[in-house]
């Protein structure tokens, strides 16, 4: 199920403003790729361009290629809606649908797309997704209760369950733990470790320890100055990036000399 993504010469714009400049990288399947870098360097923008969520913002556009399975996601015949059905996303702030119960939130991907599915199949899907997100035991007795009634960490795991319920090949995570306490963070990091056996995971994080803990490969983004586009400095195995990076700026960032 997990897929490899090949990004080549990707330029990302907001209107006329070039936000991220010529990114070329390969995202390995069944592995966690972490993206680190200072604020405003374009990590999140790059992440959102991988499942065509970037273009939801008016005026936003992309040049270059993102190839998954030999198919360019930005080909003019590709429907962004179906891209997003294959590449799921978890956001920085937990955003369960406020009108829906826990059950309905997990089933949202099926229900909102009006896919036909029998009640028992849907029950199984909800249970397996919640189990996948390590939330089942905590919520199995109150599936009918509103999703907003959960704690922040539980809500974020609910959003992960919702994302994996559409059975994506790739899971993008945009600082999924930045609004959570250390215990919830630990729960989600453990979850990421389990999920990588089935999914390709890309995670944006500000927390370098987190990148070191959960990822197999790490990409470092930087920007030359305010108002200048962000760019990928280097991407390599996490152990290499954290012990022996090839670029001076990576070493400076990781050792805390700037950023």
């Amino acid at each position: 199920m997990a897929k490899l993504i090949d990004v080549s010469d990707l330029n990302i714009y907001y209107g006329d403003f070039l936000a991220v400049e010529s990114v070329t990288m390969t995202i390995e399947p069944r592995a966690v790729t972490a993206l680190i870098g200072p604020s405003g360097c374009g990590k999140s923008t790059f992440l959102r361009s991988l499942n065509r969520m970037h273009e939801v913002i008016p005026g936003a556009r992309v040049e270059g290629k993102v190839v998954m399975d030999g198919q360019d996601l930005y080909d003019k015949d590709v429907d962004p809606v179906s891209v997003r059905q294959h590449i799921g996303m978890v956001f920085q702030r937990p955003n369960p649908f406020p009108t829906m119960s826990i059950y309905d939130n997990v089933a949202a991907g099926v229900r909102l797309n009006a896919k036909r599915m029998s009640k028992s199949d849907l029950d199984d899907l909800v249970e397996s997704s919640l189990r996948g997100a390590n939330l089942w035991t905590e919520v199995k007795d109150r599936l009918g209760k509103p999703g907003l009634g959960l704690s922040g960490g539980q809500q974020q795991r609910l959003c992960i369950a919702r994302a994996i319920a559409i059975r994506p090949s790739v899971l993008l995570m945009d600082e999924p733990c930045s609004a959570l306490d250390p215990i919830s963070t630990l729960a989600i990091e453990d979850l990421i470790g389990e999920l990588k056996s089935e999914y390709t995971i890309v995670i944006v994080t500000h927390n370098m320890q987190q990148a070191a803990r959960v990822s197999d490969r790490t990409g470092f983004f930087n920007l030359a100055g305010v108002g200048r586009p962000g760019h990928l400095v280097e991407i390599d195995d996490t152990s290499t990036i954290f012990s022996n990076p090839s670029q001076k700026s990576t070493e400076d960032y990781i050792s805390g000399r700037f950023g």
Partner: protein
Amino acid sequence: MTTTTGPSPSPEAVAEIEQPMRQARLPRWTPWASLAAALVVALLVTAPGGRSLGGVVAITAIAHLVLIGVLSAVREGSRRAKDRIVTALVTIAFGLAMIPLVSVVWTVVGNGLARFDTTFFTWSMRGVVGEGGGALHAIWGTIIVTLIAALISVPVGLLAAVYLVEYGAGSRLAKAITFLVDVMTGIPSIVAGLFVAALFVIVVGPGTKLGIMGSLALAVLMIPTVVRSTEEMLKLVPNDLREAAYALGVPKWRTITKVVLRTSVSGIATGITLAIARVAGETAPLLVTLGITTGTNFNPFDGRMATLPVYAYYQYTQPGVPAEAGVERAWTAALVLIILVMALNLVARLISRLFAPKVGR
């Protein structure tokens, strides 16, 4: 346990040294005492013969302001005195705002109850010139005309608001529409009535008066209100939810119908109900578009129709013989209209509570 030795400081010294944040306060009942004293002053100042309610209330208010201000300034200092005076001013302003409301309800209930009987709700005015008679035809007319107006303006207004927020956001066309909608909410209601009347004069012929014309005139008034309130509600839906739906591979139109509208449905329904309540009491546009009849007419496409506001107007201006009977019917029609609008407001509250997103464990 330790015991203190040496002379203990006097209570004044404690207040001075150890509690610099402590200040003298007036007792809690002071405002009420001041108000009572002000009332006594007002009663003493005004001569028993030339005493009027308005004069007494006004003098009481002023005396209370002065009294509480001086008391507080002397005992509590200037900052608290200002606080007391402003509190009293705000309360007086609230009282002033309540006067017309209470007065209207009081007068209408007082005058309207006389004919608030079963005859009023079961009879029309067909063949009635003097006493008796009712407003059944006008009640039906108001319900039919308002319902059709709502059926026209709710879909139009709702879809226009969806366009403005979800599709046109920031575009020049959307800005122009928003501006025009704002202008439309301010047009005098008679203009809407004359617009529809003129339209039908051109299309059908002079002197045309139909129920549907009244509905159209009300729809012209209602659409801007529905657009505006729906627009505000849609803007309140956090963008996070739209993105969450897009990220699940949900198409835009499904995101709008199943997530955005579903999340804001309570506010939208409330806005629509309030818009209906607002147009249900319109008189001027109905006066020129659908006129008045004495009998019940269920067909909005055929002939004149009676409505409660127009009924009240005609019962007051052309009361028949004896005149008191007509005037009494006018008061009762006004009372029924107020009850109707109040019921719609209660429905709006109920809807907003029923559909509101639930947060609970």
